[in-house]
């Protein structure tokens, strides 16, 4: 059991996770932001590692990835920055990014490095289930890493069952099929989709991501799942004045 599994087991309230891009706005801001987000009360953190061609992302995260790469961020630098992670941060931390940088770093090396610095899970949206299961799963299990899969309103029940079977942390529900940074649509269709997943009684808990930016959307997500993930809204916030000092204010604007 890793920190993430323990969190889902122990905490009963709605969970809030914050995503941001490593190396943005400054190369060395990664660990400071991680620490500040924990102090402000978030339950876990997703640190994005940047990629040149982030095709599942909207303009906000495309921009932060671009700046992070210009700042010199890459996986080697990130793992170097995270070597003191567990001296400063105790909540679960996940890494999120695209598969090609992971392949170049080496999947086995990547999983080892995650474990060495105290990362609990990984989200690689373009790593297919087939390749994960047949080539890489053992590296994840050996290092007690949760591999997080995504589900959209179009994902079939059969596939959700398979994802549930392969998952060991939580399942990431996309509020709609979209790139990052769109608003959560509160509609009958969305309600039907979230209810359908809830009624499947999966073995893994679920979280809703994509489109969570305020109290209303957070509460909506928490009605159906264990909580929500805020990404684009936080990355956009980091670009505002005195953002570092105002992180608690941002967290309250999502979960008062």
């Amino acid at each position, binding site marked *: 059991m890793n920190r993430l599994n323990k969190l889902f087991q122990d905490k009963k309230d709605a969970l809030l996770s914050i995503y941001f891009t490593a190396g943005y706005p400054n190369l060395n801001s990664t660990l400071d932001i991680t620490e500040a987000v924990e102090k402000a009360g978030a339950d876990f953190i997703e640190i994005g590692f940047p990629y040149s*061609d982030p095709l599942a992302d909207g303009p906000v995260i495309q921009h932060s990835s671009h700046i992070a790469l210009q700042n010199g961020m890459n996986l080697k630098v990130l793992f170097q920055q995270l070597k003191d992670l567990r001296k400063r941060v105790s909540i679960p931390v996940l890494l999120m990014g695209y598969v090609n*940088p992971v392949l170049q770093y080496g999947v086995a090396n990547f999983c080892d490095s995650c474990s060495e610095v105290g990362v609990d899970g990984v989200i690689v949206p373009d790593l297919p289930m087939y*390749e994960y299961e047949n080539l890489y799963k053992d590296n994840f299990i050996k290092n007690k890493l949760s591999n997080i899969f*995504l589900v959209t309103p179009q994902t079939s029940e059969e596939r959700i069952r398979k994802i549930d079977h392969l998952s060991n942390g939580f399942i990431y529900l996309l509020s709609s099929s979209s790139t990052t940074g769109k608003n959560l649509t509160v509609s009958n269709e969305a309600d039907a989709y979230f209810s359908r997943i809830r009624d499947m009684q999966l073995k893994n808990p679920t979280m809703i991501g994509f489109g969570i930016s305020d109290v209303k959307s957070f509460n909506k997500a928490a009605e159906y799942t264990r909580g929500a993930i805020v990404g684009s809204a936080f990355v956009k916030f980091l670009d505002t004045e005195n953002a570092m000092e105002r992180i608690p204010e941002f967290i309250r604007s999502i979960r008062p």
Partner: protein
Amino acid sequence: MNREFIKSSVKWGVSKEGYFGDFGGAYIPEMLYPNVEELRKRYLDIIYEPGFQDEFQMLLRDYVGRPSPLFHAERLSAKYGTTIYLKREDLNHTGAHKINNTIGQILLAERLGKKRIIAETGAGQHGVATATVCALKGLECVVYMGEVDIARQAPNVARMKMMGAKVVPATSGSKTLKDATNEAMRDWINNPVDTHYIIGSVVGPHPYPDMVSRFQSIISEETKLQLMERTGSENPDIVIACVGGGSNAMGMFYHFLDDEDVRLIAVEAAGLGVNSGESAATTALGKEGVLHGSRSILMQTEDGQVIEPYSISAGLDYPGIGPQHAHLFKENRGEYVSATDEEAMIAGRLCAELEGIIPAIESAHALAHLEKMVFTGKESVVICLSGRGDKDLDTYMNYFNL
């Protein structure tokens, strides 16, 4: 077309899992999965339906103008001292091989019940071919095109608009083909139900590389028949084609893959020189990795970031190659070489002067390789003249001060 004729090579074709050797697969986020999976499940059944085949063949004949001629280029042959044939894809409606694939995919999209078509384009040839078939079928069409390419391919932008397509500039990254492809994929993620994405090359997640190859395989299918009629043998000694993503090359190679005494030569764009830092010679500069949904060979940093390519030819300005090409390269079934901007421009002008054919700068890369070959005089060589040079007149004019 029948199941016998368009059959996939057992040795070089796609596996059940969507791989060509080590390459291919479907490295896509879940948001794209239902669309790609629907295609994967249905593409073969649909394209082998008799109704589909009849309509596809009719449109290729009456609308595209196929078969495209196989032309014996006598003056080029005399210059290089061997027998050279040009497969005249430049004579197709819309001026390039791209329309073979868009005709196939629009018929597929219709049968999938899609109402809206999106596409990416580099030189604009695929965009034009897509806008064309959308006009033909009365479907909405959105084409993503890099801002840089919009500027250097103005006539094609105008052609797309004239046929009612919306051209959306891709403003991220190098603002060329790679970025247009990213934008098209984002559009597809955001429009998962009513939209079909017509990918223009043999790239992207499975089944695109295999599907596009099959639609382009008409090039080598015809070439075999034409050579047989002309020479009594259906195989040439050498086949040459240019490669960006690699769709005309895959179509030109397709029916020769299993005839292993036929040399297959793929010419990439070296830009200002393979080692100049301004190049698109993927097999020379690239490593294995994942780009646009498949595992292939791509130009990338040690950290796995995609390197911006460069070529004078917008259609070859791409940092990857299709997964089947990566397989042919790795297994040495194909010879992957390159030609610089300068070599291609000179070869393009030479073809115009000797044969009265102005080739697209993309195709001129294939012609440029003739300069580097040594012939005994007995070879027959087929070069895929994938497109015509009208769209490139500005570039030719500036380059040669015409």
